[in-house]
Each structure stands twice: as structure tokens, then as C-alpha cells.
């Protein structure tokens, strides 16, 4: 009996010494191909994201950030880091903000792009940033394998309804950015952010017919709220071409024609 007690105490002591690993909400595989886990995974929740990415956190909060889980993988001297951001709603928004129009589209998740040394992907409510820490390209196929394996068991998601209202032609699909707040918009266009305020959600995109211009659709709580904001902007809108379509304000920042957008909105919302 005495020996059993000593054994139990010893086991408890050893468990305490080894430390209790942080509970991680994302189930990282032990390895992907030849790559193995390097170090312990860690996680930041809610407001603590500021501790991880400082001022960059505000953008993620605007898109509904909940958690980020991080795990590194190594193969020899090389390191790939995997960051999995879980959002309250579809991760398409934050994905659209962080990818660039010139990035290469790849087949992974609900949407993915690769830019040399890093891959961005969204799958349902999850955003993945998979980064080769060397900063050099050459590992593209490995990054894609990571993305496909990490996302295969996750629930798929849908793009926001507002994005579906954008006319297909002549819009540059890769330029579409969905915004949930003004931090995103001000980073895309200070002029747009200065004039277009008070909206609930917005989408920004370019047209292949007017490459130097930027188009914005802002959705307001109601048609009267849209009218109120239109009246505020009208006296000082300078070069902006601005029209209302129900609860939407449609704008081209440099004055290009926007009838093709208002018509599409009217059709979509009939």
C-alpha cells in the first residue's frame, strides 16, 4: 500500500514537472509529408491577439477574430509556420484583405493564393497563413500540400452575400476585397474611407475596363440610412461618382461610370 502511494505521488510529481501543455483548439497533425512538428503549438484568444501581432490585431478583430493557433514544422534546417485564425463568420473577408490581386490562385480550401514563400487560404471560418520562414520561394508544392491536408476535414463556407451582388463582368475577380469595418477600407483607399462612412459592410474591387479606378459598394442598415449618408457626402465628394440603390451606396473613387453596378444591385435585390 505504501509503495502504491509513493508511486502515485511520483507520477503526479512527474506530470507537474513536465508542465501542462496549452489546450489548442486546432488539431495539428504530427507531421505533413516529411515535415514534423517543431516545438509546441500555442494559441491566442480574443483580445490577447494584440500580444502576438500588436497593431496588426485590430484588422483581425474587425473581421471577427476568435482564436489563432500556431504550429511550426521542420524538415532538416527548414521551417514552415502554420497559423490558423478562426473567425466568427466566413473567413473570406480577412482572406480577401490579405491576399494580393497578383498572387497565384491554387486549389486548396474554399480559396487559396500563393505568393512565393507564403500561402493564404480560407476554409469556412478558418484563415490559414502557411509560411516558409526562409522567405524564399521554391517550396510552393509543399505549401500547397500543407494547405490541402490541413483543410480537408474542415467545414466549407460561403462568400458573403454582398460579394455575390458584384457583376461578373467587367470586374477583376482577384481584386475583390470584402470589408467589415473602416480599418480595412482605410488601408485600401484613404479617400474612400474618408467619404464613405456609417456602413455595415462593404466590398471594393477593380474593373478591367477602368484599371486606374476603385469601385466600392457600401451596404447600409436601410435605404434611409444610405440616403442620409449620401446627403452628407454630396456637397464635398470631389471626383467620386456616387449613386444610391436602395440600402446601397455605389461609388467609383475617380469618377468612372457605375451604372453597370447599380443595375446589377437592382437585379440582385428584386
Amino acid at each position, binding site marked *: 500500500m505504501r509503495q502504491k502511494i509513493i508511486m502515485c505521488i511520483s507520477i503526479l510529481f512527474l506530470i507537474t514537472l513536465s508542465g501542462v501543455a496549452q489546450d489548442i483548439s486546432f488539431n495539428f497533425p504530427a507531421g505533413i509529408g516529411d515535415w514534423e512538428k517543431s516545438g509546441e503549438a500555442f494559441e491566442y484568444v480574443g483580445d490577447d491577439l494584440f500580444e*502576438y*501581432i*500588436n*497593431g496588426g490585431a*485590430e484588422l483581425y478583430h474587425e473581421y471577427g477574430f476568435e482564436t489563432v493557433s500556431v504550429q*511550426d514544422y521542420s524538415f532538416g534546417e527548414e521551417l514552415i509556420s502554420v497559423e490558423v485564425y478562426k473567425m466568427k463568420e466566413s473567413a473570406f473577408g480577412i482572406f480577401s484583405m490579405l491576399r*494580393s490581386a497578383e498572387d497565384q490562385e491554387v486549389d486548396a480550401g474554399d480559396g487559396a493564393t500563393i505568393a*512565393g514563400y507564403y500561402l493564404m487560404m480560407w476554409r469556412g471560418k478558418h484563415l490559414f497563413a502557411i509560411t516558409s520562414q526562409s*522567405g524564399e520561394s521554391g517550396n510552393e508544392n509543399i505549401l500547397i500540400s500543407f494547405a490541402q491536408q490541413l483543410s480537408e476535414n474542415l467545414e466549407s463556407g460561403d462568400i458573403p452575400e454582398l460579394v455575390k451582388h458584384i457583376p461578373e463582368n467587367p470586374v477583376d475577380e482577384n481584386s475583390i476585397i470584402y470589408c467589415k469595418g473602416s480599418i480595412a477600407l482605410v*488601408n485600401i483607399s484613404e479617400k474612400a474611407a474618408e467619404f464613405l462612412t456609417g456602413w455595415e459592410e462593404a466590398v471594393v474591387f477593380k474593373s478591367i475596363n477602368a484599371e486606374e479606378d476603385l469601385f466600392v459598394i457600401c451596404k447600409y442598415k436601410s435605404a434611409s440610412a444610405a440616403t442620409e449618408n449620401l446627403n452628407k457626402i454630396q456637397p464635398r465628394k470631389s471626383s467620386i461618382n456616387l449613386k444610391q440603390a436602395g440600402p446601397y451606396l455605389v461609388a467609383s473613387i475617380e469618377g468612372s461610370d457605375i451604372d453597370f453596378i447599380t443595375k446589377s444591385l437592382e437585379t440582385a435585390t428584386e
Partner: protein
Amino acid sequence: MSDNIKFSRRSFLASAIAGSALTLPAMKSLDSLIVDESPDIVIAEGNEAVANTEAVITALGGMGKYVGKDQVVGLLPNAQGVHPGCSTNPDIVKTVVKHCKEAGAAKVLWYTWLPERAWTRSNLKVNVEASGAELVYINADDADQWKTFEIAEGKALKQVRIFKALYECDFFISMPIVKDHIGSRFTGVLKNYMGASHPKDNRPFHPTFEGDDLLHMEQCIADLNLVARKPDMIIMDAMQILTSNGPFGPGKIATPNKVIGGFDRVAVDSFAATILGLKGPEVRMIANAAAHGLGEIDYSKLNVKSVAV
């Protein structure tokens, strides 16, 4: 004695005195013409961070010109994260440490309030300590390590806590990295002080940007610089930098392969902004800091030296 060379002793002395009277002012004028030609800003460009940093320090006159024997040197690099182009290149930090030690510094300290995970995951701690510097961890929860500053001239920020250690070293070198930043589009020396101000005080710098509040963070940074200790030297990393998705990345990377040295935080930032395709006056935090009288926004007025390495 010949009439042509008749000099009485008195006239000789008078001549000598008159000659001296003419010569001395001339010598003083010459002295004022001999100016210190050390540049105000040095930009070293080459493929190697160590060589670029050495070239900057040499062009500024050598660290021995600034750091005295047995002095304590404090460093404030940006150690934000592990993604490429996000944090100050450890080779630049190690080179600065080496030169400070050679100049006779008793200690070289690296300050951070970031948690341990931030600087162990990237091997930064190992690299820095291997260079002979000491990592000084400032605990955000220990009130004794922080001093509260009232900012009477602050337009957006009226009070801020800065860690005391920044004021306790003999010589302070700010070591930011130039990179993109969400909203402000730029971060450099001025914003690097957010690594010295309390993280809880930093958070209100970042409200939603709406209407007039577009200026809020950029004014807060300028106001912070009113009370933050002026850097005794700036060594800025512009070797491999984030040009999108800053400050943390991952994002697009550029490799300007430059290290920048200087003393005027507004001027250095104004020059550094051009690396990202911006002009100093276009970046609100730089313009706001200049408006506070914190430095020269038109860096072309200064002695700027470029060194090819």
C-alpha cells in the same frame, strides 16, 4: 644702420603686435571653417547586413566617438515576430553590440516587453546573447518598472507609461526595421517607441479609423515621441522588409539591402519612407512629429551620405 631697415625695438614690437592682431582673427575664421563633416544620415547599401552596418558605423565616425568606456548602452530593436521582413535583422544588432563592446561599453542591453515566446521562437535571444548583449525583459505587470509621463503638448495622447530602463542607460540606440503597417502604411523610428511604451497604453492608439479619427494613431505616435527619450543614435534595418500585410506579415517582401544610420528620428523616417514609395510629409506620423518640432522632415537639408558596400 641703414635707413631702409631702421627698426627701433619699439617699432619692431608694434609691428609684431599688429601682425598678430591681423593673424589671430584670420586663424579664428579658419577654425570656424573647419566643421565636423560627419554625416547626419548614412545609407549603406550592399548584400550583407554586417558589412552595411559596419559601413554605417564607420561613416558616422566610429562607435568610439559616441560610446565611452564603461558606459551602459541600451538597444531597442523591433522583435515583433518570425515572418521574413518583420523584425530587425539579428546580424545588424550583433554588429552594433560588437562595436559598442569594442568602444569600451561595460554592458549592452536589449530591451523588450514582448513575452518570452516572441524572442525564443526566432532564436533571437540566443543570437543576441551570443553577441555579448543582455536581454532585459520588462514586465508589463510590474508597476515599478514603468514611469508615467504627462504629455502637456499632446494633441491625442495626454499620458503614457514608458519603461524606466530606457532612461537608465548612458547611450540609447533605436534599431527599428522599415516596413509596411496597416493604416499608417509605414513604421520606422517614431513608431518603434511603441516597443518602449506600455502595451496596455498602446492599445488605445488603434481605434477604428472613421472620419476624423483617421489621424488618431498617427497623432498618438507623434505625441509619444514628445516624452520618449530621444535616441542618441539610430541604426535602421532596410535589408529585407515587408511591403504588405505589415506589421506582422506574412506579406510581400522587398530587399532594398540598406542599413540607415542617423540621429534625427524625423529625418531618418522621412528618408526611410521613400523606400516604401512614400514621401515623409505624406506619412501623418512623420508630419505630426515634425510639427511638434521633433526633427527635420526635409532630410535633403541635412548632410546625407550614401555608401556602396
